[in-house]
């Protein structure tokens, strides 16, 4: 729906013009709660960074400190090298899209989008022209005279986006902007926002609690928990090589198998003893033989084969088969507390019936072993 007029917005050739954001040792304490606990990260110009975490993880607080609505107790925030830690929000020149859009209900869309321009002393006629142009960019051409209450949620979202980019801020902050939309629209808007961001070259910091959203949209994802930055990296890196059990469990689905360390080899692979035999995975940290450890393996990485346990595999029995369209989920009882969750493509000639004895295995490099239980 968004037209390809993004460069018209700037009146000069498109290209990366985003700002660089640097957060150094940000701390924020509310009473006894550490909302931000020594968080440091850098966002490159033109990068799309997602801040991902459960509620109370500090992701919104971090965004608010960048926006200027929260002042960190300690630490420093710079945008393109300029220290903005103590600069009030209205002097930071950053764009922001709020969770509930925060459109001014008494102003037309043109006035809403023109508001930041009015604050910057742009004359009325130019304001209206630029607002109309940006409304066209987000697919709302000719809507300038309407009021926000006359729009659907998705359209309000687009207006909020238009208002945040009309003054060409170097950085766009987004606070769960898609959470109020229904599923289909949300998935459509993900790609639209991402495409618009690429065209404008603006740096985006995007807060979400939806791991799929983070994986789909972001260049890099920062996972936060209890005010701490746990891991930051490209979506694939985080999904395939989570640094601890929290990240493994929060991003996508996974199976956790607790066991005792039997040994490690020189290639970084560890073997765990579990109830049904021995299993292997890549160790994320040095492991001591005889201590407790936790192995994580993704449902789609597990191979199932009818018959008794093969060498180096676990023996199990199909407990339940759940057909989910493109894929089928097999719950396999391998003698652990919870059955293993295995996801396989739904192929007609390859169906394992409930009760079938199966051999369960995976490539050791596809599983991760974390110290502790």
């Amino acid at each position, binding site marked *: 729906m968004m037209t390809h007029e993004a460069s018209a917005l700037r009146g000069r050739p498109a290209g990366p013009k985003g700002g660089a954001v640097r957060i150094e040792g940000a701390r924020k304490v509310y009473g006894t709660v550490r909302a931000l606990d020594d968080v440091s990260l850098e966002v490159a110009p033109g990068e799309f960074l997602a801040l991902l975490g459960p509620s109370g993880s500090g992701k919104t607080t971090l965004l608010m400190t960048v926006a200027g609505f929260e002042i960190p107790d300690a630490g420093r925030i710079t945008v393109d090298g300029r220290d903005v830690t103590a600069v009030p929000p*209205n002097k930071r020149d950053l764009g922001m899209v*709020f969770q509930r859009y925060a459109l001014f*209900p*008494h102003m037309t869309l043109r006035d809403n989008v023109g508001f930041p321009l009015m604050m910057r002393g742009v004359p009325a006629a130019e304001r209206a022209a630029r607002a109309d142009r940006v409304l066209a960019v987000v697919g709302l051409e000719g809507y300038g005279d309407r009021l926000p209450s006359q*729009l659907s949620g998705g359209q309000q979202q687009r207006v909020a986006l238009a208002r945040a980019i009309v*003054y060409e801020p170097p950085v766009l902050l987004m606070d769960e902007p898609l959470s109020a939309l229904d599923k289909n629209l949300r998935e459509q808007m993900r790609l639209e926002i991402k495409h618009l961001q690429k065209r404008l070259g603006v740096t985006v910091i995007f807060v979400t609690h939806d791991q799929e959203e983070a994986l789909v949209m972001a260049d890099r994802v920062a996972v936060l928990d209890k005010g701490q930055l746990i891991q930051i990296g490209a979506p694939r890196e985080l999904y395939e090589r989570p640094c601890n059990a929290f990240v493994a469990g929060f991003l996508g689905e996974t199976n956790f198998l607790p066991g005792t360390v039997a040994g490690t080899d020189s290639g970084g692979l560890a073997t765990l003893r579990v109830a049904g035999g021995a299993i292997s995975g890549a160790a994320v940290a040095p492991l001591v033989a005889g201590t407790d450890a936790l192995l994580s393996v993704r449902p789609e990485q597990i191979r199932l084969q009818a018959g008794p346990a093969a060498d180096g595999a676990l023996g199990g029995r199909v407990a339940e088969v759940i057909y989910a369209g493109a894929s089928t989920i097999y719950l396999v009882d391998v003698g652990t507390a919870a059955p293993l969750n295995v996801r396989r493509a739904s192929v007609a000639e390859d169906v394992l019936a409930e009760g079938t004895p199966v051999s369960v295995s995976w490539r050791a490099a596809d599983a991760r072993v974390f110290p502790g239980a």
Partner: protein
Amino acid sequence: MAVIANAGANPKGFSPRLSLVLIAPAMALLVLFFVLPLTGLLDQSVRSPDLSIANYVRALGSDLYMKILLRTVWLSAMVTALALVLGYPVALTMSRVSGRMQLVIAVCVLVPLWTSVLVRSYAWIVLLQRRGIVNDTLLQIGVIDAPLRLLYREGTVMVAMTHVLLPFMILSIYGVLRSIPRDLSMAASNLGAGGFATFRHVIWPLSLPGVYSGVLMVFIIALGFYITPALLGGPETLMMSTLIGQQTTETLDWGLAGALSVILLALTLLLVGLFGRVLRLEGKGI
């Protein structure tokens, strides 16, 4: 496409019969104690002493009565303006602070509201009378040699009426201010607006419904205010309701009292209607 609120059908609406049952007690009370006496008054105004409009001719033809009517409107307007100027900042502060501070302000606003108007008016007498607290203090510190005449002046009535009516203004503005989402001010700030610009372009226009209802309420109550002007005012601050009171209790001229009441009521309705019209025109933009 555009989703426009469906004004007609209300899925949560009560059936006509249930609605009638629910409003019946209040209606009965209003009819019994408001509509019937009012009808009686109207009846008196054209039949006492005999069937004519003489009472209206007397009321409208009298310079004194018209002067009192004008004074009532003017004083009410001044009280309303004063209440708005004093009340808006309080309401704004109340909507911004939280916790203990908010409680303190709320108590300061509500306690006067819960106190009888009579008590509050007598309190002003205690303060302002010839040997009252204000005069005593001024005499003691030597600012004045003789007690000032503070009571029975127009300014005194105005201040005391504002004091009595201020909570109505504050509460109706506060109610609207509190309902303005916090993220609108945040958005304005993020878009480059300083504190004053945010107020002028976002908070003030969105608070206008509360301002209008506060102004309307205070103005209408002020028009018919009786106790405070009667206690604190003198002959030169006579207001309509006090005048009407005199006709019914002292001169026992029920016909004139009825005519004056009807004139005051008509004027009130006229002003409310005008105000509603302005409001509807303003409301088109919201």
